[in-house]
C-alpha cells in the first residue's frame, strides 16, 4: 500500500516541473504543454486526496479540469497559430513587441 504522501510529492514535483518549463522553454507550443503538465499534476493531487477522503468530489473535479483543459487547448492552439501567422515563428523570445 503506497502512502498518500508519495502521490502528493510526485504531483508537487510534476507541478514544479511544469512551472519550470513554462519559465524556461522558448517554443510556445512546449510552454503550452508545460501548462498542461501543471494541470495534470493538479489532477493527480485531486485524485490522491479523493482517495484519502474516500469521496467523489476529487474525481469529479478531475474530470472538470480535464474538460476545461481541452477547451483551453482549443483556444490556445488557435492563438499560437495566429501568432505564427503574424510573425512566422512561435519562439517566445520573439513575442515581445509590446514592452515598458
Amino acid at each position, binding site marked *: 500500500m503506497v502512502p498518500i504522501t508519495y502521490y502528493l510529492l510526485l504531483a508537487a514535483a510534476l507541478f514544479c516541473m511544469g*512551472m519550470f518549463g*513554462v*519559465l*524556461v522553454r522558448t517554443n510556445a507550443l512546449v*510552454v503550452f504543454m508545460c501548462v498542461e503538465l501543471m494541470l495534470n499534476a493538479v489532477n493527480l493531487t485531486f485524485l490522491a486526496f479523493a482517495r484519502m477522503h474516500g469521496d467523489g468530489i476529487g474525481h469529479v473535479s478531475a474530470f472538470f479540469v480535464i474538460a476545461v483543459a481541452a477547451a483551453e487547448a482549443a483556444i490556445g492552439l488557435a492563438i499560437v497559430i495566429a501568432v505564427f501567422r503574424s510573425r512566422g515563428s512561435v519562439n*517566445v*523570445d520573439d*513575442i*515581445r*513587441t*509590446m*514592452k*515598458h
Partner: protein
Amino acid sequence: MDGIVEFFRTAPIPPEVFAPSLGLIILLPLLGAFVCGVFGKWLGRANVHLVACSAIAGAFVLSLMAFWATSDAAGGRVVSMPNAFGLDRDVVRYAIAHDYGTWFAAGDFRVNFGLLVDHLSGILLLVITGVGFLIHLYSTSYMEHDDGYWRFFAYLNLFVAAMLTLVMADNLVLLFVGWEGVGMASYLLIGFWYTDSAKAWAGRKAFVTNRIGDFAFLIGTFLLILTVSAFNRQADARDYAAAGSAKARYEQGLSEKGPVTFKGLEKMALALPEGVGGAVSLSTPIEAGPLSGYTFGGVMTATMLLFLLGAAGKSAQLPLYVWLPDAMAGPTPVSALIHAATMVTAGVYLFCRMSSLLVLSPTAMATIAIVGALTSLLAALIAFAQDDIKKVLAYSTVSQLGIMFMGVGMGVFWAAALHLVTHACFKACLFLGAGSVMHGNGDETDIKKLGGLWKEMKWTHATFLVSTLAITGIIPLSGFFSKDAVFHGVHHNHLHELHWVSGLVYALGLVITACTAFYMSRVYLLTFTGRRSPEARVAHAHESAWHMTLPLVILAFLSVVTLVYALPLMPRSGGGFQPLFENFLSPVLRPAEAVARAAKTVVLDNSTPGFVDYLIAWMVALSGGATAAFLYLKFFPAQVGKPVPAFARAVRRTAQNKFYVDELYEFILIRPVKFVAFILFRVVDALVIDTVLVRGTAYVTEKVGFGLRRLQTGDAQAYAAIMALAILGGAVYALLQVLS
C-alpha cells in the same frame, strides 16, 4: 480799553456752537484737493487757483474762529470742556473739542474721530492755514508756466488737510493719520516733476525714510496702549485721585474714547510720579501682560525713545535727516510750506502734545536734547559749504529744528513751540525769497552764480534781509527772542541726575548760533550784494509779480512782530513776569509742569532771560555774521587766483559732500538689504525650496517610475518568473507563520 479787551475775549461764534464744525477746517482743503485733482484739468488754471486758494482761505477763517473760541472768556467765564477721563470738576480750560464718533473699534480698543483745539493746536492752525494761504497765493504765480498746476494745487490742498488733521487730532492714531498723510503728500510733491527720475527718487527716499520713523512710531503707540491697560489694571484709588479722576470714570473714558487719547494719557502721566503715592509709580513693575517685569518708568523711556525715532524721521533729525536736503527737488513753495514751515515741525508738536509723558523720562529728554544739538551742529557745518541756495536753507531748517528739539528735550516746551512759530514765518519767507530769486534768474540756484541782486529785486532783497537777520538772531527780531528763550531754558533747566546735559547742550547752542549767523550771512552776501557773477544765466534779473512779493512782505512783517510773544508781559502766578507765549501755552503745558514737579525728573526754571544773556547771544550771533562779512566781502575777493591750501580744500570737499553720510547709509544699510534680498531670492527661494524640494520631489518620482517601467521587458516568461517568485515568497512567509 475794556471794551476792546472784552471784544477780543468774546468769540464771535460761541465755542459750544462752533465746536461741531471743527471738522470743516479739515474738510475744506480736502474738498479743494478733490475738486482740483479730479476736475482740475477741465476747470482751467484760474478756476483751480480760485478753488485751491479759497479753500485754504476758508480754512484760515475757520481756524481764526476756532482760535478765537479757544481764548473765549466772555464775562470772565473761561471757555472749558469736560475731560472724559477726569472727574466732572476738573475741566480742560481754553480748549474746544468735538468727537465725531467711532473710527474703528475692536475688542477693548477703539479710535474716534476726535478733534481738539487748544492754544497749542490753535496757534499751529493759524500758522498752517495762514502761511499755507500765502504760499498758495505765491504758487499761483510761481507755477504759472507748469502744465501740472491742477495736480500741484490738489496735492498742496491735500497736504494742508493732512497737516490740519495732525494738529487737531485728539488721539495718537488719528494724529498718525495726519502724520502719514503729510508724508504721502510730501512724497507726491517732492516727486512733482516726476519726469526727472532723480526728483522722483528723492520723493521715495523721503517716504521710505519717514516710514522708518513711522515703524518706531507704531511700536511706541502699541507700547503706550499696553502701558495704559497695565496701568488701568494695577492702579488704585489714590493714583486716580492724584490724577483728578476715578477708576470708574477713567474706564468709562477708555471705553468711549479709546486708550490713546491725549487727555487719557495725560491722566496716566499725572498718576505715575513717585511723589503722588498710590499703587503705581514709575518704579512699579508691570504685573501681567506682555510687558510684565518691566517698570512703568522703563517702558515710558523706551516708548519716548521710539517716538523720538519717529519724530526724527518726520522732523529730519539724526539719524534720519538725510531725506530733507534731497526733498528740495520739489517746487520751492513746497519746500517753503512743507519742508520749512509745517510738516517738519510735526515732531516738535508731537512732543509738546505729549509733554506730560515726556517729562516722566529724563533719559529720553536728555537723548532728545543731545540728538537735537548734534543734528543742529552737523547741519550747520554742512550748510557752510553748500552753494545751492535751497540746500543751504534746507540744512538751516534741519539746524533750526535741532534747536527746537533741544528746547523740547530740556523741557522748555513753550520756547520750542515759539521758535516753531517764528521759524515758520522767517524760514517760509527765506524759501519764498529764494524761490523768487530763482524765478527771476532762470531757475539758477547756485549762489556763486548770482550776486548783486539787491538792485534788480528790491522787494525780494529787503524781505530776504529781514528774515536773514531774524534767523541769525539779531535784536530786535523774533528769531532772536525765540532762539534765546530756548537757550535760556536749556541753560537753566536741569534734568534729574543728568545736569551735565544742560551745560553741554547750551555750549553747543552757542556754537550753532555762531554758525547759523555765518552761513546765513554768507548766503545773503553772495546772493544779493557784490557784483553780478559773470556766469549768471540771465543778464538782468526781474522782480517777481505781486502774487509773490506780497507774501514775502507779509511774512517778513510777521517774522518781526512775532517777537512780542517772547516779551515778558504777563504777570506770573508766583510773582514777577513771564513771557507772553509761556503764559499763553500754560493751559496746555500745566500738566507737564505738574508731573515734572511731582516726579522731580526735570527742574523747570522760569526765570526770564536778563540783559546779560541777551548780550552774550547777541555777541555770538554778531561775531558769526561779522566773520562771514569779513571773509566774503574782504578776504576771498582778495584771495582770488591764489592757490587754496590743501587742508582747506579737503575740509570744503567733505562739507560739500555732507560728510558722506548718504554714502555711509548706502553702504551699511541699503546695499546689504538689497544683497540679502537678492541672495534669498536666488538661493533660498529659487534654488533650495523650489528647485530642490518641490521640483526635486517630482523629478525623483518620475525617475522611479521610469526605473520600474524597465521591469516590463515584454517577455511573458519573465512575467511568469516574477509571479512564481512572488508566490514562493508568500508561501515561505505563510510557512514561517506556521512554524512560529
